[in-house]
C-alpha cells in the first residue's frame, strides 16, 4: 500500500496553480485537496498520478462567504468548517446537520467540500446537498472560468464534467429563506460509512400547503439527483404521514437503483423509501 512515485507541486497562488495544472494535466496530473479520497486510491495503486498539484497553500480558496443570496465555499474549505452553522438561517443549520454524517472526525478535518464534489462519489453528502439545492460550480482553468449548474455537473459514478486542467475553485449554494423546512436522513451499516442511501428534502409552507418541494436522493443511483415524481407528490399537499409515505413510495419507484454484491435493486429501493420517508419526518 505504497503509492507509485509522483511529483508534488505546491503553488501559492491561484494563477500559479492553474498554470501548473494545465502543464501537468496531460501527464496524469491531479489536484490534491484534503487527500481523503485520492490518497487511499493511490495507496491501492488504483490511480498512479505522475504529478499532484497540492492546493492546500493556494491563497484565496479558504473563504465561506454569503452575499445575501448565495453562500460561496472555496476549494480549501474542510468538512469540519460546517460543524457549526456557517450562515444564519436554514442553510447553515442544514449544512451543520448534514456535515456530521460525513465519515469520521479526522477525515472531516482534512476532506474538502469541493473535493467531495470533484470526486463525485454517489453517496457523497455534499453532492446530494449540491444537487438538491441547485448549487453552481465555479470552475477555473488557464482557459478561463465557467459556471456549471449541479444538475449538469455530475456524470456518473465518480465522474464529473470537469476537464483535466480545471479546478473547482468554489461552489455557490443558494441561501434558504427563513421559512424553509428541511429534513435529512441517511442509512449506513456502521457510523461514518458511506451512505447506502440518503435523502434531503426542503420545502416551504404556504397556507398549510407544501410549495417549492425539493426531494434529493443520494447513494442510490450513479449520481445524486432531485426526484421530480416525489416532488410532485408533495407540492400542494399538507404535510402528514400519508403524504410522506406516498412521496417515499414515489421516490422508491422512480430511482434506477445501483446494485452491488450485497445490495440488490429491491433492497436499494427499500432504503430509498425509508430514507425519503424519514427525511420528511425529520422536516416537521
Amino acid at each position, binding site marked *: 500500500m505504497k503509492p507509485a512515485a509522483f511529483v508534488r507541486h505546491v503553488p501559492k497562488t491561484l494563477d500559479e496553480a492553474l498554470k501548473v495544472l494545465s502543464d501537468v494535466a496531460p501527464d496524469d496530473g491531479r489536484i490534491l485537496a484534503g487527500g481523503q479520497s485520492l490518497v487511499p486510491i493511490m495507496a491501492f495503486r488504483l490511480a498512479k498520478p505522475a504529478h499532484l498539484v497540492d492546493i492546500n497553500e493556494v491563497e484565496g480558496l479558504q473563504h465561506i462567504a454569503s452575499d445575501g443570496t448565495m453562500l460561496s465555499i472555496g476549494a480549501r474549505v474542510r468538512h469540519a468548517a460546517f460543524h457549526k452553522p456557517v450562515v444564519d438561517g436554514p442553510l447553515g443549520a442544514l449544512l451543520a446537520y448534514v456535515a456530521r454524517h460525513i465519515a469520521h472526525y479526522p477525515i472531516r478535518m482534512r476532506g474538502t467540500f469541493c473535493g467531495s464534489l470533484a470526486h463525485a462519489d454517489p453517496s457523497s453528502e455534499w453532492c446530494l446537498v449540491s444537487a438538491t439545492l441547485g448549487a453552481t460550480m465555479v470552475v477555473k482553468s488557464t482557459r478561463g472560468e465557467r459556471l456549471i449548474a449541479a444538475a449538469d455537473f455530475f456524470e456518473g459514478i465518480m465522474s464529473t464534467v470537469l476537464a483535466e486542467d480545471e479546478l473547482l475553485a468554489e461552489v455557490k449554494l443558494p441561501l434558504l429563506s427563513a421559512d424553509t423546512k428541511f429534513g435529512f436522513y441517511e442509512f449506513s451499516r456502521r457510523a461514518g460509512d458511506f451512505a447506502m442511501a440518503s435523502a434531503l428534502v426542503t420545502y416551504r409552507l404556504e397556507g398549510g400547503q407544501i410549495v417549492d418541494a425539493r426531494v434529493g436522493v443520494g447513494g442510490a443511483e450513479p449520481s445524486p439527483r432531485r426526484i421530480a415524481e416525489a416532488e410532485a407528490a408533495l407540492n400542494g399537499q399538507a404535510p402528514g404521514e400519508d403524504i410522506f409515505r406516498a412521496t417515499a413510495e414515489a421516490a422508491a419507484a422512480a430511482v434506477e437503483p445501483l446494485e452491488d454484491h*450485497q445490495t440488490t435493486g429491491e*433492497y436499494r429501493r*427499500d432504503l430509498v423509501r425509508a430514507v425519503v420517508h424519514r427525511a420528511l419526518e425529520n422536516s416537521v
Partner: protein
Amino acid sequence: MSTHETKGSGLKWVGRAIRRLEDPALVTGQGRFTADLPATHWVRFVRSPVAAGSIKSITFPDGARVITAADLSGVKKITPMLHKFSYRPVGQSILADGQVRYVGEPVAIAVASSEEAAEDLADLVDIDIDETAPLVDARDALADGAPQIHAEAPGNVILEGTVKTPGFDSVWDNAARIVAINARSRRQNATPMEARAGHASYDAPTGRITLTCTTQMPHLMRTAITDLLGMRESDLRVIAPDVGGGFGQKMSLCAEYVALVWLARQLKSSVAWTEDRRENLIASFHSRDQYIALEAAFDKDAKLMALRADIVSNVGAYSCFPTTSGVEPLMAMAEMPGPYDVQQYQCRARGVLTNTCTMAAYRGVSRPVITFTLERLMDKAAAAFAIDPIDIRRRNLIAKFPYTSAMGLVYDEATYKETLEMAVAAIDVPAFRARQQAARAEGRYLGVGFATFSERTGYGSPAFAARGMAITPGWETVHLTVDPSGFVEARIGSSPHGQGLRTTLAQIIADEIGVAPDLIKVIHGDTDTAPYGWGTFASRSLVISGGATLLAARKVRAKLLKIASHMLEAAPEDIVLENGSAKVAGTDRTVTIAAMAREAYTQTHRFKGEIEPGLTESGTYDPPGTFSNACHVAIVAVDVETGFVRIERFLVAEDAGRIINPMIADGQVHGGVAQGIGNALLEEIVYDESGGILTANLADYMPPTAQEMPPIELHHLETPSTQSITKAKGLGEGGSIGAPAAVVNAINDALAPFGVQIDEMPATPQRIRAALRASSSAHSRASGKPGA
C-alpha cells in the same frame, strides 16, 4: 459498566484489577513491532490474481530480483498432518509451483531496496495463467464431477469425521418431535489490528538467522521453518516482539515467513515484509465458512434426547499448520452438543477443499458457529413446544458434574443453570416482554436472545492427541528467577499478544513469594531467551502458563523459606513472605528478598548440601483442561424498513473460575463480544463466482467500530476450578462464542410477528429485509400499514 461479584481470592494480588504492566510502553508509543525494524531489502509478494489455473509463465524485467518456485527447489512443502479422520495430507509450496489454487496465493517475490520499490517491481511481474473454473462454495466442491483441487484428496474432502452413539437409532425413532435447522455461517477474517509482518536478518559471525514476526507461537515457527528449510534449529532465532493482536490468525505458519528466512540466508542480509490490509483480507487466513444441518430429537417434555449433525466446513485451498484443516470441522463435531444433557449423538463432519484462502483458527474456533446453530435450534424447539426459550434451556442444561458428553469429553464442572438464572434475573424478562408488546403496537420491533455455552479452555496435550494431531501442543514451562538484586524474572513459553499475561502471571508470582507485581518481569516471545513452549491460543495461557508459573513460584518460595530460616534462625513454617521480605511471624525479625537472593548466589557455601546455588526454578504444567461457561443475552431493536439492527443491551453472566485480574478478564470478554457482534451482524468475506474477493478493504469488510458497540454488562460467578491449580479457567474466546447466537436469537425474537427465520450469519440488513420481503406480513407493513 461492569458489576463484579468477585468472591475474592483471599490473596493479596490475585483477584485485583491492577493496571496492566505492559500498557505504559504501549500507550506512549514505546511498543516495538516487527514493522519498526529497518531492513536492507524489502519484499512484495506477487499474488495470484486468479483462483484456479496453471501457471504458463512468469516474466519480469531483466536483472530484477524476483524469486519464483523454481528458485526454491529443495524447500519442502508445508504439509500438516493428522493421523485420524481419513485425513489426506496435502502440501503447499512456499510459492505456487505450477498450479494456483486461490486468489492471493504467493506466486513470486519482488525484492528491492524499499517497500515502494518492491511494490513498483511487483507491478512489473507478469504472471500468465491458464485459468480453470474455480470452486468457491463447499457444496459445489462436494458435487459429483467437481474438479479436483488436490489429487491427494478425492472429492475435495480433506478429512471426514463420523460418530454415532450405540443407542442413537432407537432414541431417534422414539422421539416425540424432531426440530431441525440449516445454519449457514459466512466466512470471516480475524482482522488483527496489526496485519502480518516479518523481518529476517543474517548474523555474519554466527551464520544464524533471526526471524522477527507477528506470531503467536515463536517456538513452533522455529521448528517448522527449520524443518522445511533443512536447517539446524539452533541456527534460527524467532522473536515475536509486541504483536498487535492475533486471534488465531497468527498461530498458523505462513509461507511468507519461510520465504523470508530463505531469502535472508541467500542474501546474507536483512529482508522485511509488511503485509497490507488488502493482503491480510485476501490472503492471510480465513475462518467460519460452514454449513451445519442440525436435527434434534426431543421427548414430549421438550427434553433433548439426541442430536444429529452434518457439518460441512470450507477449509480453503490448503491445510494450515500446526492445527490442520481439522481445526474447524473436528472442533464442531467434538463440541456440538454444547452445554446440554444429550447422550445420543450422530455426526458427520467434513473439511472441504475449495479455491479460497486457507481456513485457520479464529477466536472461538467453530464454537461461535455451533453455538449459533444449537442455540437457534433450541429457540425453534421452544417455539415448537410453545414454551419459553429460557424454559427449554432450564430443562436441558447439564446440572450434574463431572459430566461425560456423548463424545466422551469430561465436563469437569460448570454453572450453566446458575449463569442462565443470573442473566435472566439481571435482564428482568417480564419487564422486557411488556416493553416488547408495547413497542410492537407502535411498529417497533424489539427482541431478546439468549445463548448458553461451554468454553473448553486450557487443555493439555491429551486433548490434541485425541484429535490425532501430529503435533500435540499442551504443556507449558516457566523458568522463574530471582536475580541477585532481588528482581524477579519469569521466562515463559507462552507468547501473549494483548492478553495482559505479563500482569496476570506477575500477580500469581507476587502472592507466592511476597513481592509486588511491578518487581516482576515476564519475558516471552524470543526463542533464545524463553523456554520451549506453545505460545498463546485456545484460551490456554493463563491456565497452563499460569499453572506452570505457580509451580515454579512454589519452588522458589520453598527455597526462599529455607534461606530465610537459615538467615533468621527460625523454622520455615514460622516464616511468612510479604512486602518483599521474609518475616518470622509475630516478631519484627525480617530479611529482605533481595538480601536472601544475594546470599543464594554469593554465599552458597553457607547452604552447602542443603540448597542448590542460585535462585532459578522451573515449573511445567500439562492439565487435563477445564470448561468455562457463560450465558449471553442481547436485546436488539430491528428496523423492519431497513433491516438495521441496533443492540440496545448486551449482558454476559460468566464463570471462568477464579479471576486473577477482573479488569483484564472484562477486557477479554469485551473484545470477544465485539468480534461476536461483528460475526453476527457485519463481517463477511465475499467471493464472487470467479473466486475474486469483493471485500478487500475495511469499508467492505466491516468489523464493528466503537460506535457499533453497546455497553456490555458483565456478571462474574467465580467458581474455583478443581482442574486447574490456579483455580482459574480460560476466558479468551467466550465473548466471541456466545455473542453471535445471542444477537441472532434476539433478531428472530424481534421478528417473530412476521414469522421469519434468520439462520445465517452475519444477519445483514440486506438478509433481514429479504426475509421480511418474502413474508407476506412484511409486504403490507412496507406498503404503509404499520403493524399489519
